C-alpha cells in the first residue's frame, strides 16, 4: 500500500491505473461514465444504481438511461440531479 501511495505522490501516476478503484466521470449534468464497475443493480428513469468494487453509485435525476456499456465501462445520459455513494 505504501508503494502505491509512493507512486501516486512522487511519480504522479493516477491511482486508478494500478488499482481496481472505479473512476466516475461526470460531464455537466447530462452525462456520467463509470469505469471498472461491477454490475447494474437497478435501472429506471429516475434512478440508476451501479455497483462498483467498494461502493454503490446512486444516480438520481430525470429521463436517465444507459447509453452503452462494455465489460469495464458504463455510460449514462439524462438529467442528473444528484450522485451519491453508498459504502459497502
Amino acid at each position, binding site marked *: 500500500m505504501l508503494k502505491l501511495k509512493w507512486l501516486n505522490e512522487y511519480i504522479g501516476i493516477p491511482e486508478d491505473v494500478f488499482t481496481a478503484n472505479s473512476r466516475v466521470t461526470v460531464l455537466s449534468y447530462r452525462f456520467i461514465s463509470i469505469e471498472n464497475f461491477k*454490475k*447494474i*443493480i*437497478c*435501472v429506471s*428513469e429516475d434512478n440508476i444504481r451501479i455497483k462498483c468494487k467498494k461502493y454503490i453509485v446512486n444516480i438520481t435525476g430525470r429521463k436517465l*438511461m*444507459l*447509453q*452503452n*456499456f*462494455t*465489460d469495464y465501462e458504463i455510460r449514462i445520459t439524462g438529467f442528473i440531479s444528484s450522485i451519491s455513494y453508498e459504502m459497502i
Partner: protein
Amino acid sequence: MWDYLNMIFRGYVTVSIDSKISVRFFNICRLKRVKISGIESMTDSDEVSFRTSIKNKEMLVKIAEKTGTDIKLEECGLNCICRRIRNKLVILGVFLSVCTILYIQNLFIWRIEITGLDTTGDYAYTNEEISDYLATCNIRTGMLKKDVEKEHIESLIKEKYPKVIWISVYTKGTCLYLDMEVARVYNNYGGASANISDVEKNFMEYCNIVADRDCIIKSIITSNGTPVVSAGDEVSAGDILISGSVSINDDSGDTIRTKQVKASGVIYVYCDVDYDRTYSYSYYSKEPSGETGQYKSIVVGRLRLDMGGEPSGKSFEKRQEQTQVCFFNKMYLPIYIINNNYSGYNLKEAKYTEEELRIIADSDLNYYIDTLQEKGVQIVEKNVKIITVGETLKASGTIRVVTQAGVPAELHEVPATEQ
C-alpha cells in the same frame, strides 16, 4: 467512432428485450464482454432495445435462454443489406458489366463497309481488294475509333486507286463506311463510255485521239481538231484518228500558223472480237449422298468455337451464313455467328451427248453477245462455228461489232507559231 463505423460496415443486431429483466441481461452481457450501445426504452411497450455487433448474435441468444426471456433480433448494417439483396446485386453487377463491355467495344471499329463500287467497268475494284489495301495501312477492324482519320483514308484511297473520283468516309456506331464513286470506263467493247475525266485530266491542254485497237472506221464526227482518217479506213492500234494540231490557212490556202487543241469527236469503228471456247464431253456430276446436317459456330475475335462438324473422309458441299452480332442497328461487335449447312455428295463421271453440249455452247455464246449488247455494243456479224474436235466441242470464231473507239493520247506541246 471506429466502433460505430465497424458496426455499420460489418453489420449489427438490434435487440429488444423485456425491460423487467434488462438489468440481469445487461450484467450477463458485461460478464460475457458483449459491447452494447444505443440503449433505448421503448415508449409504446415495456421493452428495451439496444445494438450490438453481429458477431455477438449467438451469445445474445444463449443469454436470452439463460435469463428465460424472449428476444427480438433484427440484423442491420451494410453487410446485412448486401446479403439481403445479393441476388439483385448479381443482376446489377451483370448489367453493369455488360454496359462496360458494350462501352469498351463501342470504342473500336468492328466492321468496314465499302459501297458504291462498280464491278462492271474496266476500273472495277472489289471490296476485298480495297479492304486488303486498307489493312496494309493499318485500317482494319479492331482499330480504335479515335484513330480513324477520315481525310487520311480518303487520300490513301485516291492515291492508290486513281479511278475513284469521289469518296466519303464516315463512322456510325462501330461501323466504318466508305462510300465511293468510280469512273465508269467500260472495257474495249463498251464504246458508250462516259466519265473518262481522269484520263482526260492528263490532256487538259492539247491531245490527239488515237485508235485503241485494230479496226475499220465506220464513221467519224470531229468536234475539235483535224480528222486524219475517214470512213472505211483500216487503222491499227496507236494510229492517230483526230489530230490535236489545227492548221490555220489564209485566203490563198497557205498555212499561216498551227494551233494546238484538245482533239475530240465521236468515232465508230468495226472491229472483230475473238471468241474461243472448248467444252469437254466428259464431266463429273455430283450425286447427293443424302447425308445432310447443320451446326453453328461462334467466332469471337480469333477464337472459333464449332458446335459440331462434318463427318470426316467424305465429300461435302458446305454453305456458310455469317451474321455479325449487332446492337441498336449500327453497333457491331467482333462476334460472328456462323450457320454451317453441309450436304454430302458422291462424284460420278458422266458424258454429255452432242446435243446437250451444243445447247450449253449456244447458251454461253448468247450470254456473251447479250453482255456485249448490254454495254452498248452493236453486233454486226457473228462468225462462230461450233464443231466437234476429238473428245471436245469447240466454239470458235469472231464477232464483228460496231463500237466507239479512240482514246486521248499525248500531244507534245508545241507553242503556236506564226509563219
